[in-house]
């Protein structure tokens, strides 16, 4: 090989250096782009959900002058509670709408007019009257919830459905739009804070559907899970860290816990269906069964976190306790456990947060049922917050898109609070030894 002149060497090195620096720069760029993509996905996700969902916190109400007409409600004048309860309140709404808009004369236009007010309006009137029977025969100004299509239109979420456009998919007729605009200009149509969404159970009508039932179901489930998984998980962690001998059984348990943590959640649902529901004959759709399934699912998470917390307690604490005459059990329960508890609680909260967001196993044990009434206890049929989101996401009504996103925002808020609590616990009580 011929000797290179220094100038030639220099030239070659310079050329290769330029190439190498270029590829260095490119590589770094790839990394930065990946990071930005990760952050970008999160932003797009949040923007979509908040953009779709913030509208659901406001609800359109229509003010009507309703006469509690005794001729309609109580034609025989008995004033019995039963008669009043089963009377036809929707007739009141219809009459009041017709006096407001006398131009609706034929059947179709009347039907269109009646469609402006939600069917929940009649229930509201019923409740008012039952609470105060003296209203019978009087006339009141009442704000009634509007129908979901009116909601969609008023909040401007149906751009294709403006007046006069000949679109096929439109849900409101020109007449209905004109009425809505009249109501709006006379101040009889208002957007208010949506209390129905936070206090009602599920409903087929989007404007009447709320998350309270699902939230209660989730709450009962998490209660069962926490009540079972935390003591069991802590006990298992104590045994494995402090007392377990080194033998094959303990090895099997350890491998097994690590594997259980990675088993797909739907498999736990199959277990719940086959064992709790078919074998033990527990009721379907009950938060108790859901809680049991979630317990088995979160147990490995809690065990792993609790073991880490126990491990972080320095051996000197144990030796000191044993040195002053404590039995091994006293050493653990009087000294190690209190020191490890904050770490265990952090792990438990994170496990609970995961359980709260889990829905696949709940589908298996029948928690997808359509339940209107909020559950009264862990045995009554109910659904859970994430399952409610799934159910609404599947509904064809456009107004449910908004509700789904809003329910997601509530779920994420719960998760945020739980995770913040975990972070706070960690920073407040964590001790560096």
């Amino acid at each position: 090989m011929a000797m290179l002149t220094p100038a030639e060497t220099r030239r070659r090195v310079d050329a290769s250096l330029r190439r190498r620096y270029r590829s260095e720069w490119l590589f770094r760029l790839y990394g930065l782009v990946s990071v930005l993509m990760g952050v970008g996905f999160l932003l797009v996700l949040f923007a979509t959900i908040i953009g779709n969902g913030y509208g659901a916190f406001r609800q359109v109400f229509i003010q009507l002058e309703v006469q509690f007409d005794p001729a309609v409600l109580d034609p025989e004048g008995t004033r019995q509670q039963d008669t009043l309860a089963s009377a036809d309140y929707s007739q009141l709404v219809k009459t009041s709408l017709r006096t407001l808009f006398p131009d609706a004369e034929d059947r179709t236009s009347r039907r269109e007019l009646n469609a402006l007010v939600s069917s929940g309006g009649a229930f509201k009137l019923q409740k008012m009257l039952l609470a105060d029977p003296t209203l019978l025969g009087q006339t009141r100004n009442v704000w009634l919830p509007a129908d979901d299509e009116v909601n969609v239109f008023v909040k401007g979420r149906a751009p294709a459905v403006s007046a006069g456009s000949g679109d096929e998919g439109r849900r409101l007729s020109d007449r209905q739009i004109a009425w809505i605009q009249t109501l709006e200009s006379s101040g009889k149509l208002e957007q208010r804070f949506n209390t129905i969404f936070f206090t009602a159970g599920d409903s087929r009508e989007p404007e009447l559907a709320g998350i309270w039932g699902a939230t209660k179901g989730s709450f009962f489930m998490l209660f069962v899970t926490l009540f079972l998984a935390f003591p069991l998980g802590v006990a298992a962690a104590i045994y494995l860290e402090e007392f377990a001998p080194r033998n094959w059984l303990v090895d099997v348990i350890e491998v097994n816990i690590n594997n259980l943590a990675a088993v797909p959640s739907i498999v736990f649902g199959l277990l719940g269906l086959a064992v709790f529901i078919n074998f033990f004959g527990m009721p379907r759709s009950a938060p108790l069964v859901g809680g049991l399934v979630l317990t088995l699912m979160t147990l490995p998470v809690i065990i792993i976190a609790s073991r880490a917390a126990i491990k972080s307690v320095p051996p000197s604490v144990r030796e000191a306790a044993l040195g002053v005459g404590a039995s091994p059990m006293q050493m653990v329960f009087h000294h190690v456990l209190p020191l490890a508890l904050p770490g265990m609680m952090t792990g438990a909260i994170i496990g609970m947060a995961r359980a709260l967001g889990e829905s696949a196993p709940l589908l298996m044990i029948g928690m997808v049922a359509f339940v209107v009434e909020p559950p009264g206890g862990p045995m009554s049929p109910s659904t859970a917050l994430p399952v409610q989101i799934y159910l609404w996401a599947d509904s064809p009504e456009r107004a449910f898109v908004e509700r789904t996103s809003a329910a997601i925002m509530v779920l994420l808020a719960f998760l945020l609070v739980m995770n913040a609590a975990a972070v706070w616990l960690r920073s407040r009580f964590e001790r560096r030894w």
Partner: protein
Amino acid sequence: MRLTTLALILIAMALAAFYLGRSRAVAIGGGPGKARLLHSLPKYYGYYTAMWCVLPGLVLLLAWTALSDSVITGRVIEALPDSLRNQPEAQLGLTLNDIRNLAVGQMVDEARRPEFAVAAELYNNLRAASQKLLSGLIIAVSFLGFALAWWRLQPKFRARNHVELALKVALIAASLVAILTTLGILLSVTFEAIRFFRQVPFDDFLFGLTWSPQMAIRADQVGSSGAFGAVPLFVGTLLISGIALIVAVPIGLMIAIYLSEYARPALRRVVKPVLEVLAGIPTVVYGYFAALTVAPVIRQWGDSLGLDVASESALGAGLVMGIMIIPFVSSLSDDVINAVPQSMRDGSYALGATKSETIKRVILRAALPGIVGGVLLAASRAIGETMIVVMAAGLSANLTANPLESVTTVTVQIVTLLVGDQEFDSPKTLAAFALGLVLFVVTLILNIIALQVVRRYREQYD
């Protein structure tokens, strides 16, 4: 007596036993403050008596609830008239169900038949009697246990050791729950799967190319007898998980590399929590995002390029699943990259390598086994992921590798087969358990391999 009242009585008895046991210990030890004669602290004698008061009753309660129903049912069947008793197994089950429904006051179709009413009454009577007997027995057993413990309380008695032994047994039992869970999964899923394979041959299921689980419910109904070839599901699952991994592995890996090798601490402090948030978002939210936002966008792009895109394309579900597992891949890779010793980096720099050359030729090669383990774990998670595909992937079992078409996955089919009312002996329902068995075994194998690889890798540098 209701179960809650019984529980309250037991708790009250336990408290009483604790105080009685403790005060007796103090008394036999020579009075308050002078308990030097005792082996254990007085409270341990209290715990001991309380334990003996409650535990036998609890054991009895558990055994009773496990056994009583079958005993009662047996008695009810014996009392049935011959025409009802000699029915085939399945019919008998339905009859019993009707009787139970009638017993709790629900109306039953055939409720007018007087035998049912008689049987239901017998059932109710037996249950009431069993409840009374149980309450009496439990209280008696609790007294007996308490008396036994009371009688054993002596100053030399090692109460603490006994209590601690019981506690230790409880701890061991708690750690066995994890084993029982695995066993429960394995047994229940395998048991139902075996029932399925009795009706559908094993190789038809594993190698069959058509999946249409719609079974004729009545024998004379027009319709298919159902085809249970699961290959389209496996291919669909692989396709969607493959797309997810193609998205997640490069991005996740590059994020981990950038954060651990290039990023300034300030950036790391911002990005890491953001990724944790991404990891903490429930999958149902991703499913909603995939179905409502990503799928329409992909469809639009496809249309503008003149491609025929299904509205529930594999691509949409795969992309969003990829986003979901990015934080998973990046945090696992981050651990692995940080475990590579600094000396290897220094050696590479000393030879004149640039930072990216060091990463590509030294760090990534050293970390490869760990990264492969992480990717396997991510794959197992993608295969088992349910909500995203249930909401954004299709139901029709197309055997295709085209990501723009609609495919279905194992998890989607499990959910569709099991949601809603089902009868427990039709192959349609049992097929879900066979699919569950496949899912469990595959993810288990992936996890075991991945955990082994990662562990061996860690040991290499520790």
